[in-house]
């Protein structure tokens, strides 16, 4: 059981690398979706005997539906409508961002054991994977030009936050977690509208052009 849990954490971090390194938007979206689907397995794998099954199931199925299906589907639909396929010329190139991501992951794994946590005793890989995923999301947001990739960066960041939240899943009432998922859904929805407005205004999704706006 523990090996499978560890394998899920390792796959989550490997998907971080994949998302950082690929330039095709469809591949990036699928990577983020696969990461969301993997995360939805974790509440089940990490569940101890004490917590009630209903809570865990709701959390897991909710995460699968929102992170693995609904949001990726929305973004795929958005790139089809805007007809873009690739991230061309990111601000930080693919190889440097991959190396930066690797450095972040190494630091996360090196220092996470030194962090004082309110709930020790969860799986040892949980905190470093969460920190690595948050770091990857931040990197994607600041280093890419296309609005769609930035939205995916936010999605990955949110995956990391969800992973960190699992640390507290024993006390957190399901409503708070549902609220987090709903927040994310609303945020992606708003970003979708913004993407369309940028696309209509400039007929491209390059966020650099926003800095040329005057009133």
């Amino acid at each position, binding site marked *: 059981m523990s*090996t499978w849990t*560890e*394998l899920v954490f*390792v796959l989550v*971090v*490997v998907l971080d*690398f994949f998302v950082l*390194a690929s330039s095709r938007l469809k591949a990036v979206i699928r990577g983020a979706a696969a990461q969301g689907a993997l995360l939805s397995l974790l509440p089940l794998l990490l569940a101890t005997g004490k917590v009630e099954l209903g809570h865990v199931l709701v959390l897991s199925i909710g995460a699968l539906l929102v992170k693995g299906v609904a949001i990726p589907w929305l973004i795929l639909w958005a790139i089809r409508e805007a007809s873009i396929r690739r991230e061309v010329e990111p601000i930080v190139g*693919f*190889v440097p961002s*991959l*190396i930066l*991501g*690797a450095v972040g*992951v*190494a630091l996360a*794994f*090196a220092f996470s*054991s030194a962090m004082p946590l309110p709930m020790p005793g969860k799986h*040892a890989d949980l905190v*470093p994977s969460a920190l690595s995923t948050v770091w990857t999301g931040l990197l994607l947001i600041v280093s890419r030009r296309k609005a769609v990739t930035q939205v995916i960066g936010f999605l990955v960041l949110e995956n990391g936050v969800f992973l960190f939240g699992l640390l507290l899943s024993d006390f957190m009432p399901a409503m708070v977690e549902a609220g987090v998922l709903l927040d994310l859904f609303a945020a992606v929805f708003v970003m979708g509208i913004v993407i369309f407005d940028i696309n209509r205004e400039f007929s491209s999704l390059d966020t650099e052009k926003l800095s040329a706006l005057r009133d």
Partner: protein
Amino acid sequence: MIASILLRLLYLVLFLALPPLVLGVVNRVKSVFAGRQGPPLWQLYADLWRLARKGAVYSRTTTWVFRAGPVVALAAVASAGLLMAFGGSPAAFSFGGDFVLFAYLLGLARFATVLAALDTGSSFEGMGAAREVTFSSLAEPALFLCLATLARATGSLSLTGMLGPALPDAWSHAAPALLLASIALFVVALAENARIPFDDPNTHLELTMIHEVMVLDHSGPDLALILYGASLKLFLFGALFVRLALGFPVQGLAGVGVFLAGIVGFGVLVGVVESTMARLRLVRVPQLLVGASVLSAFSLVLLLR
């Protein structure tokens, strides 16, 4: 004791005799995918025999460096085979840190080939040499990080110890890290042996070639040495990958059988990759190699924690 020595001898004989057959397996898989009948499995033996009986042509601009290239390359790769623990049985020679010597014997082989290519004075071969050196400098960290992961997981610094009886134990407590390391090692094996997606061993077009361009000026027995050396190198990487991926305990003759089945499986895997993937654009090659390095570095981080 005598059985152990005989087993090592058997592995060395297999190492010297079988490599062309592995390339035959790769080519057969590619033919099946393409719907062709394909050359016979022993085609490379026939090619080597034909080339060995021919005379060699040397350009007047070349020196002894050009003639030494194929010989040094083959000798270096064959000596690297002495350090390899085939199928988990002890290597012919082993000492602490011999994996560094292993990696740099392969490096010496490449260096000799590159020098011979530069010695011809052809700009075309110079370009191929530059590409080969660039990509192998990116593949080397990935290889070393994989071997360091193995060393950390098994607590041994020689290839015999890394691939020996400690490997199954390492799989039982560090499976995810070793899995990542084997994937990275497979990518390195494809890059080092100039297979698709890094290089296409079939073409002789200047835009696509990396390794093949360097051996264009060699002919006759020299070319035979180069082809044989390349197949030995593929076999070595195959042996490393197979032992790492199939890390369960087997001994004696059963181990030889498992090892040979694994090598054939490696040939089939390479053939499937070559049939289903296109060659990468040249600018994407460093990206994949850095990706392999990052994967193996991550596997090492998982173990160091």
